[in-house]
């Protein structure tokens, strides 16, 4: 079976130990969670977890059933292959020199990144984009000497209201 990336979103009770149960569903079956985002929803008793994992194509179906069994999981949504908007955020800090300053600033403009902080020889930028684009941007800046990089996991919403 082909290995592909899956994006799953869960609504869960906002309580201690819940994340650990969810992580257990993945780890006990040998799956690795590649990215993970957790935050409260508009209802403070409910959190949304968005996670991605690489696995065989029938993975989501199997893992979804296991997650559905957890008492603290309210709902499980599979974003894999569905028309959705996905975004992750990345912060990059770069060392600036006389030679590279111009090109870096131009690229930041072209890619639509935002400069968060800048001094004579130092720059921090922020990028919010889908995973492919953040990866491409990181690849572009790497030759300039990335001092530090940090990024969130993906979050997602459907493009249009789904049929019930």
């Amino acid at each position, binding site marked *: 079976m082909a290995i592909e990336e899956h994006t799953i979103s869960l609504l869960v009770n906002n309580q201690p130990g819940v994340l650990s149960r969810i992580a257990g569903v993945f780890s006990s079956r040998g799956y690795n969670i590649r990215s993970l985002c957790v935050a409260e929803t508009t209802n403070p008793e409910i959190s949304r977890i968005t996670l991605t994992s690489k696995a065989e194509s029938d993975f989501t179906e199997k893992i979804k*059933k296991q997650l559905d*069994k957890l008492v603290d999981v309210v709902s499980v949504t599979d974003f894999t292959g569905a028309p959705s908007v996905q975004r992750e955020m990345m912060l990059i800090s770069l060392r600036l020199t006389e030679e590279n300053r111009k090109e870096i600033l131009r690229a930041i403009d072209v890619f639509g990144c935002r400069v968060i902080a800048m001094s004579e020889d130092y720059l921090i930028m922020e990028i919010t984009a889908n995973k492919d684009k953040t990866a491409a941007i990181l690849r572009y800046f790497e030759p300039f000497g990335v001092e530090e990089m940090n990024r969130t996991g993906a979050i997602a919403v459907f493009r249009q209201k789904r049929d019930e």
Partner: protein
Amino acid sequence: MEPIGADIVLKTLLEEGVDVIFGYPGANTLPLNDRMADSTIRHYLMRHEQAAAHAADGYARATGKVGVCLATSGPGATNLVTGIATAYMDSTPMVAITAQVNSDLWGRDAFQETDIIGITMPITKHSFMIRDANQIASSLRQAFQLASTGRTGPVLVDIPKDILSARCGEQPKKAPKAQPKRIENREQLERIAQALNRSERPVILIGGGVKLGDACTQMSEFIQKAQVPFVTTMMGIGSVASANGFNLGFIGTHGNELANRMIHQSDFILALGARFTERSTSVIDEFAPLATVAQIDIDPTSIGKNVKVDFPFVGDIQEALAALLPLIVPRERNAWLERIRTDRQTLEEKLTDGGCGQAGSLIRKIQAAMPRETIVVSDVGLNQIWTVRTWQTHSPRSLLTSGGMGTMGFSVPAAIGARVGAPDREVVVICGDGGFYMNIQELATISAYGLPIKVVVINNGHLGMIRQIQDLFYDARFTTSDLGDRVDLTAVAKGFGVPAERVAVDEDPTEAIARMSAAAGPYMLEAMVDQNQYVYPIIPPGCSNVEMICGK
């Protein structure tokens, strides 16, 4: 007097129909043990927390009610782990209550502090850490609800000592919301019925879920009407009486050759409450290659977990069978039934003793000497296979064994729970010397409470099944499996206050068995068998269900 947390625990347990707790106290459970003096709930003091969990498990298996065990924090709680895992693997409804250190000590590595919720997460359906005395009743009620519904299983409730001691108000039960029962997806049942009606060589596969779903009567009716032969998993044994003419036996590594052969040749399998573990299917790619599969299970994650399923149905087995029954058209399948008859005859001639040798003959004699409604509890290893292949079940809750987890040491404590839960039935343990050692201290519990449990220890001085595997597949190098013959188990039993005798199985054990069955109280029979007595046929690792071997 205003009640404390412990009173609420006991009151809620009573409300949930609990009459017995199997436990072992510690400093942190004491508020609860103290209040038991005023409760009608009986507490059985076991000699090890692991045994408390197995006893609760045995109680649940014998009665169908939720079993309850209680242990203190730290080592008490961790000692429950094997018992909880055993219950989880066989879907036994159980509530395990553990006391925790005072809540102001959490995370400080206090004396006897352990994160039992974290430790048991993969082996419980759910768990509750009680953080407020006012949550005790609601959490416990939810625990019982979870343990006893859907795919049943163990739930753990961890309660800090300060919350057990805290004054708190009554916590009355809210009226439960009525949950209308209805069958969804009826068309899928119709498709299953059509496929079964069309099939030429159908086999029904009965798993442990048929008993757990209390659907044994419906199952028998269904078989009678459909006139379809059935096989079981090891956990499914007893769902339908062994003597039913359509019974082919149980499938898998140590199963009956007839069952393995016929499911392999079948063109349609109707599986109920079975998850197709590798112990049942052997090499999965070669399992029943000609069959389409219909699977009925209450747990959606069991469907298609191990085999490809053509007709899935998620739901209650009892209701599913009731809905299926009128859709079944009985038809003649003479060629199929004739093939089964011929094979059965050939196999019976080939394997005259059922593959269980002297031990099988011993077990037949024991069953003959005991009342019809006796509950037999097997341990794990050769003794288990000898028992499940030999014992003729008449009713569903009469053969208890640790199937999924294969826990040695299960039998003696589980028998205690079974006897406490079913005081009108005789209880016989059949275990090996290896498993007997693992919870031998429970003879003290049997003795202290005068429980008339008959314990048969089939002693071959070895870990017999390990020895057989070494003999067959490790060039007969018998490393690390010799238990020796220096221990006089009858003297040990007598030391615990249990009358005992030793008998050689190759001589006639009938009189010894008669003395055991006539004993009013507990009895231990040490039955000596030769170390080269194995169980055959067996499926070698990496082989399919039709590659059973009958010797070296």
